[in-house]
């Protein structure tokens, strides 16, 4: 996994609530057996018409907006556990998703792929949408070390929560499997000592 570094970037606004993982990557694109290529189909049904032509009213097809940060409405990533949603977001080039609320499984999947989900207040989120509406080249700065996000349009900043272990993983580019594999003796000890074992 790549190490996560401080990002200052323009951002893409998606002020829709409850964006589920079926929208992020529709099920018919889940037939691959590798992690690559999902970025091309990120938000496929909002992004392309039936013939595969870009829908011009969708934000990813608007050349005015770009950047490594996606800013979305409340409850982002609900529904299916498909990690393909995180692969699609990462594959497209986003490194951070900002929302006022994330679904649990998506949040874990994002973190396991080096994508940082940043939870901000409703107020801060609303201001981000206003700033980018006024100036599409508005930027945000996301500093993981300090756990802060700054709306450079207004200068206002907020701190965000992240589990210290996960923060360390992102900053160092480590994944959970490395940790679990180093812990095998504890697993065997658990198996020997548990009160009730299933066959």
């Amino acid at each position, binding site marked *: 996994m790549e190490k996560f570094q401080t990002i200052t970037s323009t951002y893409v606004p998606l002020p829709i609530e409850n964006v589920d993982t079926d929208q992020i990557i529709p099920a018919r694109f889940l037939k691959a*057996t590798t992690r690559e290529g999902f970025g091309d189909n990120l938000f496929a049904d909002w992004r392309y018409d039936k013939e595969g032509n870009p829908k011009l009213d969708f934000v990813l097809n608007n050349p005015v907006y770009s950047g490594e940060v996606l800013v979305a409405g409340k409850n982002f990533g*609900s*529904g*299916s556990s498909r990690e393909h949603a995180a692969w699609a977001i990462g594959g497209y080039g986003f490194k951070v998703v900002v929302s006022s609320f994330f679904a649990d499984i998506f949040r874990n999947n994002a973190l396991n792929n080096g994508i940082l989900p940043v939870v901000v207040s409703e107020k801060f989120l609303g201001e981000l949408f206003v700033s980018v509406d006024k100036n599409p080249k508005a930027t945000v700065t996301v500093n993981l070390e300090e756990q802060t996000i700054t709306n450079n349009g207004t200068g206002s900043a907020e701190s965000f929560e992240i589990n210290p*272990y996960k923060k360390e993983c992102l900053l160092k580019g480590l994944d959970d499997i490395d940790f679990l594999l180093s812990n095998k003796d504890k697993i065997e000890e658990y*198996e020997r000592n548990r009160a009730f074992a299933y066959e």
Partner: protein
Amino acid sequence: MKTLFDKIWDAHVVATVKDGPTQLYIDRHLCHEVTSPQAFAGIRARGLNVYRPKQTTLTADHNIPTMWQNKPIRDTVSRFQVETLAKNASDFGLTYYGLNNPKNGIVHVIGPENGYTQPGMTIVCGDSHTSTHGAFGAIAFGIGTSEVEMVLASQCILQTRPKTMRINFDGKLEENVSAKDMALYMISQLTTGGATGYFVEYAGEAVRNLSMEERMTLCNLSIEMGARGGLVAPDETTFNYIKGREFAPKGDKWEKAVAYWKTLKSDEGAAFDKEVTFDVAKIRPMITYGTNPGMGMPIDGTIPHLDDIGEAGKISFEKSLNYMGFTPGEKLEGKQIDYVFLGSCTNGRIEDFRVFTQYVKGKKKAGNVTAWLVPGSWQVRKQIEAEGLDKILEEAGFELRQPGCSACLAMNDDKVPAGKYAVSTSNRNFEGRQGPGARTILAGPLVAAAAAINGKITEP
């Protein structure tokens, strides 16, 4: 004093990472073809074997056709994914219920019906509806593919301990009101993100009175309000269901297991982070009108007006109704529909087929309706045939298909065309879930049966 959730969680803690998540031991791991290939590729790349191969079982369900399963899958990409699953099973020495295996079926149907799912277990699968297994008093939840890889590599997973919520369903259900209606009602009250961060215990008289299959339907939909999982304390209903099934403990081991399982309930006075109570007498047969499962209402209800929706939610609400072709304040009773889907891990079990069949018996399917009846497993299909339900369905103009996830997520050919309305017993009404442009109205099997016969949304 501990909750049921605490007891099971605490019994599976291997270690706790300082300032971090818990390393949790996993008793049972289920895999299907869609969310596992990258995980197997991952452990191959690391030169690892599956750490505890007896604790992982594979089935093909998401991506398979529901007709002509004895022939090669026509879609070459789908076929390759299923073949990859079979190869992974054989390379790593894992049990695999492939197409045409009598134990094949939807992952959350076959676990319980084979006695593989038991109280007190931790169960994971790369599928959010793993919450279904919570009906047995297990901690069961969906995981991502990186986490599937963790379980394959170490039989453990790193998880932050969720908060606990108890949802009490008091009173007795009205006739014609099902577990699906309880769930859709609950989600409409709590919203689609209302239980995010929580693990739910379902309790109360109405839950105790549910059959195991009904409890599975209720627990299945926990994820649709954001909860990682939902569980029900095991009782005699649970033990009677498990006893004698293939992987259930036998003889002395059965006695020992039941003695342990009887301890699995929340202690009197145990504290939950949140507690909610519903009076089930208020619940009517439910349908959804929007594009998330929280947008539900009684079958004779009216869609909310724009004024009833908070400012931040207005764009999403309008987008949703626009997609569905509905207007604020509209009633849906009497609305013509095009498709009916009976099946999925939510409502694809024998009791669901009994309810549907009983309603359609002696009647005829409406000419304007295409109906897909997809059993959750081969064992469900065999039972349908053993009870003669297939004959009754045939006389009423219905055809039974072969098991799989089918139109619930439309990865195979069972896609609802753009703009068409489908009354579906599945779990998600998201945009495009049943095919690009498809419009899904979620409901229980009885409401689906009435829609199939009348060609429109009607009170059963």
